[in-house]
């Protein structure tokens, strides 16, 4: 029978070193790469058939957060620093060593001198500086955006061929981790000259990285072929493979239809598939195949309660919503054991996590009392009302999140029990994008964000980042809760590691105390795989790495 890998699910120990302890059997690189199934020495050769859910839309690394993009960028580019997905520690990769000044406003990196891009050009300090100048500052004329992970970037200095210095206008403690993410994938000088269009589908072969794979063929919207780079020899030291990738080729084929993806896997036409929906896991497991569910280790899949809306401005209403939702039932009914119940706004596998589950207990009686207290009385139709207004709230269907509509439908039924009418917004992209920016239209925002750095909580809630609470009103640019702003700024601007953790925990506590957020579950990325595919691993937020994959057949 199949085993279920639940990467990194388990207790996270926080000390000075922030070591994460892996309890379940790991599925990522390092010494566990064989992880029990096919054993013996890796075999070189063969083609891995990998089915994607959606086509990629760009290979510009700062926009690689979209999983189809990230799955490619992670395999065609290297990063300055390697964040070990097991320990979340930073290890040398393209940078052999680094130095950070006292207040985290200056970073110095020493680089390897033997690394080349796949077009033969050298990966030196010059090109590294150019990469971060673009990722840190963006270029609106070319529609190239700033990387969300790089904050307060000011300038770069090339000291010599293998030394580069980055300067920041304010402390940027998250920068080291930022250099390890796919959003900071290093590309060649020729690639950096391109505009947004040049990173688009159809132009993949011209996006040049130094990674273990190169894009050798592409059919727009349908398939991308990754070929192994024969001369690749600069993997992070902790990876078992130090040479070229084991497989010759990875055939990435887009198969949007869920049942076709799963059927292709169970019938043996595909080796690995991304995005096995919760309801299909049993079918994959039942066929004796592997399921991998790496965690995304950031802000949990959650509902942001937009407290600037008049109804939700009353904390008792927000607390009532939290107490009125049986989150355990949602997880048990809609999802599987790979989707652990959330106990804070951050995932238990995220850095800085603090267990705050007491704030999120299910208690329908308390919910009803709170609403009574707030003056919302039950109307004839079972919906509460106050001053002639009914207690109707709108939540968005988060299309990128797994089974968002199903989960929200169940939540809507649960809330109906306490007299709250929850409507689910499903709309075309234009209407949707406008509506989610307006607390008058969407009062409850369903979303998540994965990144293995303390900055992640700022990404989600800060006024000029994702702003999911609409703490900054997009219409007037006013900040409703300056205290939350200050707490979030403190996370991203404190140089000291322990203080940053404390600051992140302060945000989580603040969000819980003020009932701003209803965390639902810790979101995984679920993959299905044949049993003879060995060495399949993931970077720190669940993007696949094909580097150590080999076929035991």
């Amino acid at each position, binding site marked *: 029978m199949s085993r279920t890998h639940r990467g990194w699910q388990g207790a996270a120990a926080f000390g000075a070193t922030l070591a994460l302890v892996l309890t379940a059997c790991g599925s990522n690189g390092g010494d566990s790469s064989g992880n029990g199934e096919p054993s013996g020495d890796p075999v070189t050769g063969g083609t891995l*058939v990998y*089915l994607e859910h959606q*086509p990629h*839309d*760009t290979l510009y690394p700062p926009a690689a*957060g*979209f999983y189809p993009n990230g799955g490619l960028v992670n395999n065609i580019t290297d990063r300055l620093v390697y964040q070990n997905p097991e320990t979340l520690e930073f290890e040398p990769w393209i940078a052999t060593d680094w130095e950070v000044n006292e207040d985290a406003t200056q970073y110095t990196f020493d680089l390897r001198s033997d690394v080349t891009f796949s077009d033969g050009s050298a990966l030196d300090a010059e090109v590294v500086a150019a990469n971060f100048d673009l990722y840190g500052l*963006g270029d*609106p*004329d*070319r*529609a190239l*955006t*700033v990387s*969300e992970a790089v904050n307060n970037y000011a300038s770069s200095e090339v000291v010599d061929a293998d030394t580069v210095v980055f300067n920041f206008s304010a402390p940027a403690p998250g920068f080291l981790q930022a250099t390890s993410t796919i959003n900071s994938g290093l590309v060649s000088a020729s690639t950096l000259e391109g*505009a*947004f*269009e*040049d*990173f*688009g*589908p*159809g*132009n993949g072969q011209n996006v040049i990285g130094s990674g273990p794979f190169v894009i050798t063929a592409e*059919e*727009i*919207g*349908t398939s991308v072929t990754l070929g192994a780079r024969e001369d690749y020899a600069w993997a992070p030291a902790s990876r078992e493979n130090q040479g070229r990738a084991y497989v010759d080729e990875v*055939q990435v*084929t887009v*198969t*949007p*239809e869920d*049942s*076709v993806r799963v*059927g*292709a896997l*169970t*019938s043996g*036409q*595909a080796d690995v598939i991304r995005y096995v929906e919760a309801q299909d896991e049993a079918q994959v497991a039942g066929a004796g195949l592997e399921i991998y569910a790496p965690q995304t280790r950031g802000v949990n899949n959650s509902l942001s309660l937009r407290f600037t809306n008049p109804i939700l401005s009353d904390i008792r209403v927000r607390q009532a919503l939290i107490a009125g939702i049986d989150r355990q039932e949602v997880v048990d009914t809609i999802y599987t054991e790979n989707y652990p119940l959330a106990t804070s706004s951050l995932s238990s596998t995220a850095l800085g996590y603090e267990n705050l589950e007491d704030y999120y207990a299910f208690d329908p009686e308390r919910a009803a009392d709170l609403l009574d207290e707030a003056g919302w009385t039950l109307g004839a139709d079972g919906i509460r009302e106050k001053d002639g207004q009914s207690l109707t709230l709108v939540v968005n269907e988060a299309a*990128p999140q797994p089974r968002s509509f199903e989960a929200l439908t169940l939540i809507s039924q649960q809330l109906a029990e306490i007299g709250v009418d929850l409507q689910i917004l499903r709309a*075309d*992209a*234009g*209407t*949707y*994008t*406008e509506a989610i*920016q307006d607390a008058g239209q969407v009062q409850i925002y369903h*979303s998540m*964000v994965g990144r293995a750095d303390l900055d992640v909580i700022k*990404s989600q809630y800060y006024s*000029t*980042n*994702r*702003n*999911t609470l609409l703490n900054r009103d*997009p219409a007037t*640019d006013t900040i409703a809760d300056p205290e939350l702003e200050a707490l979030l700024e403190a996370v991203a601007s404190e140089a000291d590691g322990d203080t940053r953790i404390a600051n992140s925990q302060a945000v989580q506590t603040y969000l819980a105390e003020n009932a701003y957020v209803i965390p639902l579950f810790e979101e995984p990325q679920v993959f299905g795989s044949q049993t003879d595919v060995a060495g399949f691993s993931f970077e720190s937020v669940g993007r696949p790495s094909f580097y150590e994959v080999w076929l035991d057949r």
Partner: protein
Amino acid sequence: MTAEAPTDVRVPDGAPTPGAPRTRGSGAVGRSTPPTGGGRVVALLTGYVPRRLGQALIVLWIAFTAAFVLLQALPGDAIMIRFENPELGLSPEQIADIRASYGVDDPVLIQYLHTFAGFVRGDFGYSVQSGTPVQQLIAEAFPQTLVLAAAGFVLAVLLAFAIAFLSASASFAWIRTALRSVPSLFVSVPVFWLGIVLIQSFSFRLGWVAVINPGPVEGLILPVLTLAVPIAAPIAQILTRSIDEVYTQPFVRVVQAKGASPSWVLWRNVLKNATLPTLTMAGILFGELIGGAVVTETVFGRSGIGRITEQAVAHQDTPVLQAVVLLAATAFVLINLAVDLIYPKLDPRLARQVGASR
């Protein structure tokens, strides 16, 4: 005058009507005396075809303008969807800079003229979602869809004729009723469901054809079947009904009385008359092919115009949608032109009107 005759005479129910004196004319019976052939060709080339082309251009311009207006009227725009997406975490200033660089907030008329001038030059711009040039997207996808649509259409017509023949011929009277119910069964089958059922049974269970990374021909088998069945059905319905109708015509009895064999009657007399309404229907059904391609290509993971359309609609990718609308309008115009030109070949009465009015 001359040029418009074929369009004007096109009667949806093109089978000869009872009492129309021409019905008994030689044309309908198949011994057509061709009208003055050379003159007609000249007439077509000097008057008819150029005028139709002119009309086609106007139709395309209207389609382009209507698409532009409708896309502008939709809430939001592609830049907003692409860059104001909270997932990118951009600040309001960064978004404003990008909006300015795309010129999306220029006056609508300026944008219209700019886009129109681009289209006239053959420059369709770039996809906002992915940044890929629209020409490249269309150029890669169109041949794929064309092959799929053409093969699907041919198969649909073959299927339709097979069904119609079998149900019309006396020797198969025993399965006649059964066959007649087949079209309505096919019509009610959703393409989506059919595609999945075909994949599940022929690919996943029986393993006869691969769905993932198949060969070029192998990859066509199931999608073509999926596409053909729902289109074959209405064609077959019209065809069987027309055949029935034509059989009731007096001229059929005349031919039969003259001693023609049943197959002669069917092939030379009935079918020729019954094909006209079917042809009209087939032209209209071409639109279904485009709709069917969206579903078929998505289910089978094929690249093509359907997939592009689906993606572009999802992201309100205006430049791509604009080009797709124009492409679809062009296809319709061409198909209609072809249908109108084929009519006189099938029914010389229509052709003679061209000649007669000269």
